[in-house]
């Protein structure tokens, strides 16, 4: 019974696009992907989802973020495998390029589905 209950709880979490690095993955039903839910990380993923790639400075400008804040959240997404980072030199100036990965796109899609499901459920209930 306990095993069955655990299985039932784990399934919606995967549907919600959670990732293995999420701290509370599989512990609560239909839990939001905390990695994606944070505003800055959501903004990074949304920006990268509609472009082929963005440099650190472009992302910083679009999101009006500070260097520290952006690099902190970008690193978390990178560690989760949601984005990939390439460091290169352009005319001897270091440049950091970010791209969204397939896992990142899947996580964002899952998050969008989750949001839509919440809205639809509320409409159906009202």
């Amino acid at each position, binding site marked *: 019974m306990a095993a069955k209950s655990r299985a039932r709880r784990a399934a919606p979490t995967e549907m919600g696009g959670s990732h293995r690095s999420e701290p509370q993955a599989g512990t609560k039903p239909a839990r939001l992907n905390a990695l994606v839910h944070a505003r800055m990380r959501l903004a990074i993923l*949304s920006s990268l*989802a*509609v472009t082929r790639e963005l440099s650190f400075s472009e992302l910083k400008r679009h999101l009006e973020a500070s260097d520290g804040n952006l690099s902190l959240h970008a690193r978390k997404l990178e560690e989760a495998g949601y984005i990939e980072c390439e460091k290169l030199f352009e005319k001897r100036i270091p440049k950091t390029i970010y791209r969204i990965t397939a896992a990142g796109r899947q996580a964002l899609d899952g998050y969008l589905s989750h949001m839509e499901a919440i809205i639809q459920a509320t409409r159906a209930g009202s």
Partner: protein
Amino acid sequence: MKLKRAISAPVGLASQAQDNLRFIRETMSRSVQFTAVPGWGMVGIGCSAVLAYLVARQQGATSAQLAVWVAESLLAASLGALAIFRKARREGLLLSHAVSRRFFLNLAPPMVAGGLLTAALWKAGNLQVIPGMWLLLYGTGVFTGGAFSVKPVPMMGLAFAGLGGLALLSAPLFQQEFLLAGFGGFHLIFGTYIARQYGG
């Protein structure tokens, strides 16, 4: 009190979800740029403008000189459209995408206004101000459309508008040279920069 909170909670959750979706949509539209501006296409337009200047200089009458530039504008529009289409296809960009539509919708009104004003001024016989008006309105269109594109595009728009202002103030002197500097020089300079920095 508990009941009241239980009833209002899902509504609050839904509005938060809507807010999140709106945030995602706004972030996405802010990040997308119209990157199909063709650098090499602009270089081609610049070269054709230099040729147009050489041909126009051979003409005696102002109307004949301007007719050469009208023909050049049609050629440049065709070259530009072809180059945008090719770059968009190469980069896998959709020209029907919202940001592309916004780029063209902002570019189009000054171009249409320029066409109508050309006809009106030509009819009124006031040909001296036409080159300055062309440069000014083309610059305005590129500047407003360029708000949705890479940085050099609105900068080029400003440069054209500034040159147009100068041409209008100095009319009827050096009008052919102003056209050469704008449609020839600026397209060559900004086109080369865009081609090198933004992939063709």
